[in-house]
């Protein structure tokens, strides 16, 4: 066989390598030539100002991993509550489950209509509360940062003073925070094991440890990054990155979403007085001013 072909390939490769070295930035070069990080406006005490109403685009709450569209859990609802597609929010693509944990995830998915804590009006937990399709408000005090979530009225206090030890497990965890330049780093522990990560049954154990990094990318976009570590569930720590968008509608304010009244049928419907026996159900309070006063018999 003549050598010229191989030689050409070798030459071509050498040329390509030469061209790459000259014209295509290596990863390091890319980082060096990237635009400098956005410098957020400051609060009066000199910290990046994250105050305001924020919300993700809702997609992570359906499923953190990349996925195509899917049906609703109830075909009678047609296309409403069908699952929208998403390129996903997991750095590296998929969640590195241990085999048994992956089996549990599949069981969760199959049972999600009844088992998803969101269906029961349970608090979202961390990280999920930060990317549910309901806004939350950051009220940034000089020492404590309050994050109040519209969904189920969940709330957490980020302590930026001397780190506090968690008194016990809780749904929203214990959060100790400090600033690193433009980024608020939040160490979240004592999270228990009952929350899910999304509506697709992605789950964790009580070994969950989350380290959040909050950084403003532009005046109206707050990047939420969370490193998720749980040696019982995953083969290694993994990271999500979720953009949060400033809520800009006129009159934007955090409203009440006390969803217990929407979850009671799911939770207790099977315990109602059986049909046939006369039953009377008090009407729910009218939370929409257009609906007038609630009265009612069933």
């Amino acid at each position: 066989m003549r050598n010229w072909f191989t030689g050409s390939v070798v030459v071509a490769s050498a040329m390509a390598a030469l061209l790459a070295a000259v014209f295509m930035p290596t990863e390091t070069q890319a980082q060096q030539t990237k635009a400098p990080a956005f410098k957020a406006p400051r609060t009066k005490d000199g910290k990046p100002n994250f105050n305001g109403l924020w919300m993700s685009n809702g997609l992570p709450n359906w499923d953190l991993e990349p996925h195509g569209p899917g049906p609703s859990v109830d075909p009678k609802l047609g296309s409403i509550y069908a699952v929208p597609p998403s390129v996903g929010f997991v750095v590296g693509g998929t969640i590195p489950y241990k085999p048994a944990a992956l089996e549990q995830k599949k069981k969760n998915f199959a049972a999600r209509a009844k088992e998803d804590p969101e269906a029961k009006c349970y608090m979202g937990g961390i990280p999920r509360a930060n990317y549910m399709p309901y806004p939350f408000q950051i009220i940034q005090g000089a020492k404590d940062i309050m994050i109040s979530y519209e969904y189920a009225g969940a709330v957490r206090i980020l302590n930026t003073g001397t780190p506090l030890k968690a008194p016990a497990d809780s749904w929203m965890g214990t959060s100790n925070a400090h600033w690193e330049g433009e980024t608020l780093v939040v160490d979240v522990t004592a999270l228990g094991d009952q929350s899910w990560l999304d509506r697709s049954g992605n789950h964790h154990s009580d070994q969950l440890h989350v380290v959040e990094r909050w950084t403003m990318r532009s005046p109206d976009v707050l990047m939420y990054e969370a490193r998720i570590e749980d040696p019982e569930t995953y083969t290694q720590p993994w990271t999500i990155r979720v953009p949060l968008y400033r809520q800009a509608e006129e009159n934007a304010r955090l409203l009440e979403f006390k969803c217990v009244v929407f979850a009671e049928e799911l939770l207790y419907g099977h315990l109602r007085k059986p049909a046939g026996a006369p039953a009377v159900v008090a009407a729910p309070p009218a939370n929409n001013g257009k609906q007038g006063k609630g009265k009612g018999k069933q």
Partner: protein
Amino acid sequence: MRTQLFTSMLALAVAVAPGYAQTANAKAPAKAATGAFKAPRTPDGVPDLQGVYSNSSAVPLERPANLGAKEFYTDAEMKANADAAAARAAAAPAFPQANVVGTVADIHYDTSQFGLTRYITDAMVNKRTSIVVGETGKVPTMIPEATKRQADARALVAGHQFDGPENRGIAERCIYWGNEGPPMLPVGYNATLQIVQGPGYVGIVQEMIHDTRIIPTDGRPHASGNIRQFFGESVGHWEGDTLVVDTTNFNDQPAVGRGASRNLHVVERFTRSGPETVLYQFTVSDPSTWEKSWSGEYPIGKIDGAVYEYACQEANYGMANILSGARADEKKAAAAK
């Protein structure tokens, strides 16, 4: 010192005679310092109300009938009440029936098993005879239309209290606890709240049930009347060193209860009265319920510690057990026929 501001709630468990609601271990009462204390400022230049507080109180909302128009105890009466309460507490065990199987004390809240006393929050020393201020110290009587409204609501579920979750009490359903208001009133336990202030907002978390009230102070108007909420919708502004909070937009089950309707209107005032105290005042009006408005006040004091998570809905075994118990009773009654 904080210890001079607080007293133990111990005597509440054993207080029998109305009017002797004062507690054991009272130290010298805090001097009222309304208006005299210059509150430090937040970085944004507004009075700093931030902190974790107890809003426990030994003073009842309404004045005991035998006290008539008496609005304050004297120092001598405070001491006499405290001594009497201490004597009662010494004579009775902290939790009388904790070891009697099947009693409420045994099943529920036997805090002694955790090495705790019966009451684990302290209450501010307060010489008032009632939180409601004024000559009667009582919430006004309801107007006839409101009395009928309440009676109708009760009649609707009479005999059907266990048919379904909607007919159970609103706290039992983990929707809210009535003391959350507004107005925010003392409660027997989990009486803790935290205030955090950011630019243009005051946030107040009440521990039970982890509800946050967010009060903008940027002068915006109330939300559309189409938005109705259990806690209403609050807007605030500063008058000197006082935060004034105006709340409307209630739905027809506001937390203060007592017959209140969606036309409820609450105005609250928060004034830092000392390094570790805030004077909390409120006025409640509802022309669909009371002919006149009523007002109250009590001090809240800073405590060491944090607001803990009260995850009510997430662990509401009580509701499932109550309903399944009722179904079991019905089956048993039907089988007995």
